[in-house]
């Protein structure tokens, strides 16, 4: 088992380098802006308050390098870089992150920027990429520990969960380029592991330190990590209810009541939006379930009823958003073939069916897992719903904007756990030990598809 984890860790590093080698410089999402932000903080000595406070020399270095390295090949939509370089101060090759993104990721990279200050810009660029690869490795190692906390005696799950985390295509790509999502993913993995530790061992100092520190750091990492504070709060309340109930002698075999305790307040809070905006629309327009849910969430997020045009496009956009969670490389243009997303969709559906089977078993009193495990998985589900609502649903309603799947990498460990548990629930016990092998073989094949049929043809074809 230890050797497997060691090899998986080594492979994570090598795959990170491989994805970095295949992806040309500046082709990660918003990479020029991320690099520029680090440079601004290093040169100014403080975090710039807004995007106007620029250091022209840094911007020019980035734009010159971007122009040299085929940046324009893939970026038809951005202003011409020759023109950008004639501006005073020079325009940036892509959206500016300074003054917009939270600063912690960039501040952490400032020492590395200063250490490599005398080197060519691409040497600095690749040095930052190695930090991303390191964060991806740390996320995989945390997933190993998280799986051990949840399924200490189940070897197939102990292998399968970190394997899926390591090979997840979206994470493989974004984990090799410069992006603050990598820190958000790591902090989220850290938080989830802390919560699972709490459910396994109770209040001990590692859980306390992990959770409190993660909640303290999350507000400075990225907005997509903000949900971690609320998730931690809900999880701690769930844990306290469970332990208090056990202390009072309750038999919490129907742990779904705890879930209802969370869901009912959410329903009460959101009911007015439904009554005010969605219900009248429902009476007038025939709607699909996806449109109904979308309209409801839009009303929650924005208030007024969802415009008819957006409503019509919603099911298609929802499918794109879900597909993006599996993989959305580069600036969103190089995507896998449609059959690949369809296959993953079917497999995800199978996992959901497996989880429902487990839930029904639990409901009927035939407990497929311990209360602790059930509650831990419920925390995972809650985390996915919260991250999805915060990052994907709101973006879903922005016209001409495909919700980036990388925002959901904050719940990579919960998603991997639930998928693996769901699949396992559908496999007869005799065949269950084969699950890690089937998964690994499939993911190696997926890697070949991602690299040789998608990224290489896009960037070099």
């Amino acid at each position, binding site marked *: 088992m230890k050797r497997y984890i060691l090899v998986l860790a080594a492979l994570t590093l*090598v795959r990170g380098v491989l994805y970095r080698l295949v992806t040309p410089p500046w082709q990660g999402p918003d990479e020029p802006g991320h690099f520029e932000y680090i440079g601004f903080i290093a040169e100014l000595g403080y975090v710039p308050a807004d995007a106007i406070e620029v250091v022209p020399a840094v911007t020019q270095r980035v734009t010159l390098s971007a122009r040299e390295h085929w940046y324009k090949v893939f970026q038809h939509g951005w202003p011409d870089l020759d023109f950008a370089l004639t501006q005073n101060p020079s325009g940036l090759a892509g959206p500016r992150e300074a003054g917009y993104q939270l600063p912690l990721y960039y501040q952490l990279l400032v020492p590395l920027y200063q250490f490599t200050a005398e080197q*060519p810009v*691409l*040497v600095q660029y690749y040095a930052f990429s190695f930090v991303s690869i390191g964060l991806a490795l740390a996320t995989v190692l945390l997933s190993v520990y998280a799986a051990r906390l949840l399924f200490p005696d189940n070897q197939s799950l102990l292998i399968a969960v970190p394997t899926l985390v390591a090979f997840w295509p979206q994470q493989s790509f974004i984990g090799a380029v410069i992006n603050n999502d990598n820190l958000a993913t790591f902090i989220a993995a850290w938080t989830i592991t802390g919560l699972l530790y709490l459910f396994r061992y109770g209040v001990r100092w590692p859980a306390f330190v992990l959770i409190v520190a993660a909640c303290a750091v999350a507000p400075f990492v990225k907005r997509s990590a903000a949900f971690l504070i609320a998730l931690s709060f809900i999880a701690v309340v769930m844990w306290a209810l469970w332990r208090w109930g056990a202390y009072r002698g309750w038999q919490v075999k129907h742990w779904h009541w705890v879930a209802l305790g969370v869901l009912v307040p959410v329903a009460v809070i959101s009911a007015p939006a439904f009554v005010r905006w969605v219900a009248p629309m429902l009476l007038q327009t025939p709607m699909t379930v996806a449109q109904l849910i979308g309209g409801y969430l839009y009303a929650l997020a924005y208030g007024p009823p969802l415009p008819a045009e957006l409503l019509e496009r919603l099911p298609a956009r929802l499918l794109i958003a879900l597909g993006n969670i599996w993989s959305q490389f580069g600036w969103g243009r190089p995507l896998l073939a449609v059959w690949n997303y369809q296959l993953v969709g079917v497999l995800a559906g199978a996992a959901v069916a497996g989880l429902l089977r487990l839930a029904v078993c639990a409901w009927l009193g035939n407990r497929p897992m311990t209360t602790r495990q059930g509650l831990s998985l419920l925390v995972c589900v809650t985390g996915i719903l919260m991250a999805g609502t915060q990052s994907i649903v709101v973006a879903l309603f922005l016209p001409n904007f495909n919700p980036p799947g990388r925002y959901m990498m904050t719940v990579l460990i919960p998603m991997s756990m639930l998928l693996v548990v769901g699949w396992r629930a559908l496999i007869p016990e005799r065949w269950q030990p084969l699950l890690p092998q089937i998964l*690994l*073989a499939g993911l190696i094949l997926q890697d070949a598809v991602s690299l040789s049929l998608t990224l290489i043809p896009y960037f070099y*074809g």
Partner: protein
Amino acid sequence: MTTRRVSVAIWIVAAIAVPGVWLWGLASTPLVMRQEMRSVMLFTRPVGEIAGAQTAGQSFVAPYAGLSRIEVLLHNYERANRGTLTLRLREMPNGPDLATSTIATDGVGEETWGMFEIAPRADSAGRTYYFQLDAQETEPHQAVTVLVRPAIAYGEGTAYRNGQPLEGDLTFRVYFSVDVLTRAFVLLSQLIEDRPGLWGHPLFYIAVGLGYIILIVTLARLSIRLSHD
């Protein structure tokens, strides 16, 4: 059927499928002359109708053997057009046709890549070519045009209008048919192009690739062993 047999079957399928996908991907990745792509589509203008005696052309140097397709960015003047457009490949503007290819223009939109396929030219590496676009049978006001980039210098060729050199270059792409091994070598040269230090050294890429294969195989073997423990 035992789990061990299923396990063997899984890895036999994987051992065939994974290299197969890599080879398929490599073989199907087009080899394109990339120089022209250093421009943005935004900074183009129509060269003028291509109909009757009106022609447009471009000279270029083919970097690889197997020249097999030329694509030109066409524009329809925001109207429905009828007719055909012929590409003539030559060695020089007034030379004989080495190959011709004709496409229908009724499907051309505001920015459509017109694809002209020709028989692969095995000796194209390093040779200078010229292609001319004409539409002798097409009536004026029913013809399409090609987009030219006045501000971008291709450097190894010149655009032509009615046989006369023109400022800028046509927006074009040139494709080459090569075997998988050649494609792999070209890919390696594309990967290391303009990269600093270690990142620009082919041995580094080969080492990473080998490391990847060794670790994948080791991981597969360990997963088999752990499953049967």
